[in-house]
């Protein structure tokens, strides 16, 4: 007789694709904790979260797209454009700040919508669509901003950079928002029909279509939602730096993919968890921060991140081969 109960938590934890990344994160924390007195402190962890919240939020959108077996090379560029739109509208055009933020979010969502339509209606590969969009968004950012950094932001635009106290530690509202977003999407992907459909789509679009899922609409929805999330990342970026910077976000396009991959999500789609992406983003943050505290030059941090990505994908491949 088939078992109808959910499997025990311990077995689910071991079976989940997040188990490996989580173990890596814990080991890294232990290692840096032994090598630096400052590492295992509240303020340092608050700092790490602040450092990863922008890429982490971008990576939520990236996770959605990768789960559908797509990829988004333009997320950082779209975010940068959204940030410029928000800040310029508020500062140069004197728009009410909330309206400026809404406009920035809408612009980012519109980029996602266009990406989604190009992928579904003209059947272009997501790689190509977003590669093109990377250049479009990058150029628009520089044209619209006139290469000028926007300064003197009104309060509502930097609110997420402000802090509140947890015990002795200052935590930014932005960090809190990032964590809440991760929890929200963990719920949506794990416990709603929409989430199941995203996974089914990533497994095989044809299977999903024949099961009655409206795959085109779902795909467009995922890209648009990802765009909206990039808009939220833009607001986080603006509030963290306190300016609208046309140069921002250039490494974030690929860093977001790094976080997703380190979190155990398969680039082939249909497999992975958004909580894994949070772990992946934290792994990058912990390594950067820990190596910095140990006095390792920053270029070595990049080197190690690169090696980690290759290791993570290799582990993913090997474990899949064993499953077959």
């Amino acid at each position, binding site marked *: 007789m088939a078992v*109808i109960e959910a499997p025990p938590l311990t077995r689910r934890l071991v079976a989940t694709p997040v188990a490996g990344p989580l173990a890596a994160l814990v080991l890294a924390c232990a290692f840096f904790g032994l090598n630096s007195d400052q590492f295992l402190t509240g303020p340092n962890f608050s700092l790490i979260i602040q450092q990863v919240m922008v890429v982490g939020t971008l990576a939520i959108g990236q996770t959605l797209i990768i789960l559908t077996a797509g990829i988004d090379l333009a997320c950082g560029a779209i975010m940068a454009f959204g940030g410029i739109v928000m800040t310029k509208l508020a500062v140069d055009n004197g728009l009410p700040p909330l309206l400026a933020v809404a406009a920035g979010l809408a612009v980012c969502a519109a980029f996602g919508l266009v990406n989604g339509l190009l992928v579904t209606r003209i059947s272009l590969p997501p790689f190509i669509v977003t590669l093109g969009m990377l250049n479009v968004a990058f150029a628009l950012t520089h044209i619209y901003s006139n290469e000028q950094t926007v300064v003197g932001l009104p309060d509502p635009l930097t609110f997420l950079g402000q802090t509140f106290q947890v015990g002795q530690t200052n935590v930014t509202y932005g960090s809190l928002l990032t964590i809440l977003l991760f929890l929200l999407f963990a719920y949506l992907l794990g416990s709603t029909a929409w989430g199941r459909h995203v*996974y089914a789509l990533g497994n095989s679009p044809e299977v999903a279509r024949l099961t*009655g899922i409206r795959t085109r609409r779902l795909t467009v929805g995922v890209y648009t939602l990802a765009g909206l999330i990039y808009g939220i990342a833009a607001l986080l970026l603006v509030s963290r730096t306190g300016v609208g910077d046309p140069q921002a976000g250039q490494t974030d396009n690929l860093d977001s993919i790094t976080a997703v991959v380190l979190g155990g999500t398969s680039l082939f789609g249909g497999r992975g968890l958004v909580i894994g992406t949070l772990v992946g983003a934290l792994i990058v943050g912990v390594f950067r921060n820990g190596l910095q505290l140990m006095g390792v030059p920053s270029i070595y941090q990049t080197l190690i991140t690169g090696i980690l990505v290759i290791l993570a994908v290799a582990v993913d491949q090997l474990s899949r081969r064993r499953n077959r």
Partner: protein
Amino acid sequence: MTTPVLQARGLTKRYGHVVALDGADFDLLPGEVLAVIGDNGAGKTSLIKALTGALQPDAGEIRLDGEPVRLRDPLDARRHGIETVYQDLAIAASLDIATNMFLGRELRKPGVLGKVFRMLDKKRMRQESARHMAELKIGLRSLSQPVESLSGGQRQGVAVARAVAWATRVVVMDEPTAALGVKESGQVLDLIRQVRDRGTPVVLISHNMPHVFEIADRVHVQRLGRRVAEISPRDHSMAEVVAIMTGALQVSEGRSVVVDQSAADAIGWS
């Protein structure tokens, strides 16, 4: 004469100069297993696609329990109680069995959790899946294991169980044993028999003559875009059916007649 559950008259489908269906007829009677056979390019797949909403015929009529219907897409066919088990496209590999059973028809929790938060009722879906699997005597260790961890036969079992669970009128199976070994094929044939014995008629598309002869109550032979024969496997030998399929024989008034001597010679029919 009983009303066919699913019936088609004069189905035609052209792709440019290629005629996939050339006025094809089709009749599925209540409670039977009907095998659809035919050479490659005979229009089997097009016929089945037209009957399951995956293809729109240029001309012709489809009737469900005697009533004319238009099946606009696969979802539409499912709404009419026609469930299809596609050859390689049945299930989402990384999702678990219960999720696959309810994919596209998920159950939500009652009350606010379901209505406002859209929360899935995973427990009820697992229970219902378990019930369906038990009815078909498909034994699985756990319904939470991803489908990719199952054997080919078990996967096909899940696909069949899902089709049976939702089919109110017809189950259509496209080459359900094509990718399976001997033992697993036997399990799937048993499943088909059980489905029929529960009263749901089954359309079985197959290349495998021994399987067809083992399980089918009637055989629909498709050739050059139309139905050339409707026969009972008890009245004809396997070689005869193959001869009809390739055009060496024709059936008229229940008897086989050689129409193409060279073709008959080629397959050793005399």
